[in-house]
């Protein structure tokens, strides 16, 4: 027992050390992220001291970019499942060694989600009021309490799966099936649940007709399964070029298939929504009108939503055409989908729900500089986490950081290229 604990501590220590070692590109990337994180921390300190008045939010538009980013990132986290399903249900060979990168992305995304919710709180010091046992959790009535449970549960599931598999690989032993397979399958269902619950957060509000529509849930999933795998496609290519980890084009094209179908469904659901809002012509169309056309001379979101729709349509066309079998066009399509869905699901969903207010007033919202800096800080922190996860896991998966070489050498900044160029040729 004690030996096991000691072995595990050695493993953690070696992983931690690896995170601080890299070549100049690694240091400059991490340096830039750290600077942005500190700027964000500074902005958050201001908000903590003076209150949410330093944001662009108001009693009229009481949620803004924090919740918008949160919503988008829940989708990114859920999308890891789109790698897990092919591997564990359809035994896809190409993605087999890559699925962990998707799960690690989910971990980083959930960390960002939790941070975005926390910075949105007026009283973050009272977070313990949410903890069952210590505080009061309004479960099952409040969708927010469901969200707290599913997000934290999803985080734990993925941390366990990634941590366990990596530690086994480190020790060069076969993972015990019952110790991770049940969790993998729970995580599949759980991934769907985190995004469904997040959608229900909005759908459940009878006083907000723009959100109170059953299509919001399915649209959330469709857009998540577009943007998430698109991010993974880009991330895998970055991993490939910086570490020479074996990632085949075929694996990327498998993901392309997923992005392709999801984007078509996403655009189809958008058409359904727009039709329902505008054709019937009842008074509840006000929010949609504000979003797509502008309302009574207010049209802050109009250029955004039309850019999003344009991006999504171009991405869809590219994804359907054979040109996106080439990585260059595939990457363009991925970037367009990510940006398009970020706008559409973040600003395009959260803000118009508040405009006009339930009493018919129109007050517009623009994020303040301070608010924007906090967002950048959280994104930088998420990227920093993901980079560290990759920095630790890639050498483990390549067998360069293992129990066998404890005390002999640790992968230094320079032998990454040296060793991996050998493995990639083999």
């Amino acid at each position, binding site marked *: 027992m004690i030996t096991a604990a000691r072995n595990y501590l050695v493993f953690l220590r070696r992983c931690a050390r690896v995170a601080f070692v890299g070549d100049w590109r690694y240091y400059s990337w991490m340096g830039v992220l750290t600077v942005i994180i500190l700027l964000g921390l500074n902005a958050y300190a201001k908000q903590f*001291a003076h209150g949410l*008045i330093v944001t662009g939010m108001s009693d009229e538009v009481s949620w803004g970019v924090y919740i918008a980013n949160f919503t988008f990132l829940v989708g990114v986290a859920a999308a890891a499942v789109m790698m897990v399903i092919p591997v564990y249900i359809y035994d896809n060979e190409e993605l087999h060694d890559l699925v962990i990168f998707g799960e690690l992305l989910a971990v980083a995304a959930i960390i960002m989600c939790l941070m975005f919710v926390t910075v949105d709180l007026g009283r973050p010091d*009272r977070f313990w009021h949410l903890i069952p046992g210590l505080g009061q959790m*309004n479960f099952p009535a409040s969708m927010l309490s469901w969200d707290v449970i599913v997000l934290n549960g999803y985080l734990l599931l993925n941390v366990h799966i990634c941590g366990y598999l990596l530690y086994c690989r480190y020790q060069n032993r076969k993972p015990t099936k019952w110790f991770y397979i049940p969790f993998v399958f729970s995580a599949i269902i759980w991934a769907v649940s985190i995004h469904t619950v997040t959608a229900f957060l909005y759908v459940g509000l009878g006083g907000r007709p723009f959100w109170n529509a059953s299509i919001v849930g399915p649209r959330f999933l469709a857009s998540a399964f577009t943007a998430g795998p698109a991010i993974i496609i880009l991330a895998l290519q970055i991993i490939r070029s910086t570490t020479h980890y074996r990632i085949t084009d075929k694996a990327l094209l498998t993901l392309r298939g997923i992005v392709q179908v999801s984007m078509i469904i996403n655009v189809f659901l958008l058409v359904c929504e727009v039709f329902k809002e505008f054709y019937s012509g009842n008074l509840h169309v006000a929010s949609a009108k504000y979003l797509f056309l502008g309302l009574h001379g207010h049209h802050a979101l109009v250029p955004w939503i039309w850019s999003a729709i344009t991006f999504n349509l171009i991405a869809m066309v590219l994804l359907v055409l054979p040109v996106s079998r080439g990585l260059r066009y595939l990457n363009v399509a991925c970037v367009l989908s990510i940006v398009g869905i970020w706008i559409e699901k973040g600003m395009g969903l959260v803000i118009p729900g508040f405009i006009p207010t*339930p*009493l018919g007033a129109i007050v517009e919202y623009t994020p303040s500089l301070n608010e924007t800096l906090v967002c950048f800080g959280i994104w930088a922190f998420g990227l920093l986490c993901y980079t560290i996860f990759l920095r630790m896991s890639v050498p483990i998966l390549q067998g360069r950081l293992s129990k066998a070489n404890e005390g002999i050498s640790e992968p230094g900044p320079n032998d990454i290229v040296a060793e991996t160029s050998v493995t990639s040729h083999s």
Partner: protein
Amino acid sequence: MPAPAPHDPLTAPDAGVTRRSFLRTSAVLATGLAAVAASLKPLFEMEDITSAQQFMQKYYKELTPEDMAKVLQRIEGEVEKEYGVRPHVRDLRPMDGVEFVYALNLSRCIGCRKCVHACVAENNQSRSPEIQYIRVLKMPHGTFDLEKGDHNYASEQVPEKGFFYMPVQCQQCHNPPCVKVCPVNATWQETDGITVIDYNWCIGCRYCEAACPYWARRFNFTKPSIPAERLNPNMSYLGNRPRSQGVMEKCHFCVQRTRAGRYPACLEVCPTGSRKFGNILDPNSEISQILRTKRVFMQLKEDIGTNPRFFYYFDV
């Protein structure tokens, strides 16, 4: 350039602490800590820092009478320290056999907004930034589309021809969406029908504000400011005691008055007698009589199923 770096202190296996690696690590650590400290500097600008007792305070419904007595005393001390006025803070509970209902006569209301300001004065709302619980809509004749209402009318004289006026405040719903969505039970409906907030329990997520179909909830985006000489010292825990930064507040039918047998401030100040309030469980109360005999026009947004305890009616 795959040159090996055998002397790199960070990669050499368990090389022990060399002088150079020690200096380097300390320098990195010191710079890091200094940078974090510098970025946290705005925290010193904080005006009121949560005390240990405030932080540890239990949920309203879990406080024993002794706990509550201590809490009330502490709050009186806090208010006195801040405003120089010793308030009287009580924890008034709902009375047995009482359910409050409000009715507003749309034929009489002239849109003078006296209720809005009486409410602010009575309930110690922040004057800067301004928080008001009552919003009066100036509606053109012939429509009930709220989007056509004017929230910011600044008429020289009211009422103006061709308009009617509709004040909206918390509707004290039978099925309050705000209560349903609150993740920490910081807001709930009491037996007399009033939906209240424990300002010491609210985490400020503003989900209730998104859920309310009547735009009746307000958030303290910063520390509220009230001139000391305007402070109303007659306070109650769930009612008009001063709120802190980062929590929600809303109309509570003036619990500090109504649970002590008085009318709400908005009713008392109304020059036209448009506002009526009372116990619906008492068949002889004025409010029961109005709902029985007048043309009760409606509950606002009846289709949402919130079933308000606030009625709009016409004189006939």
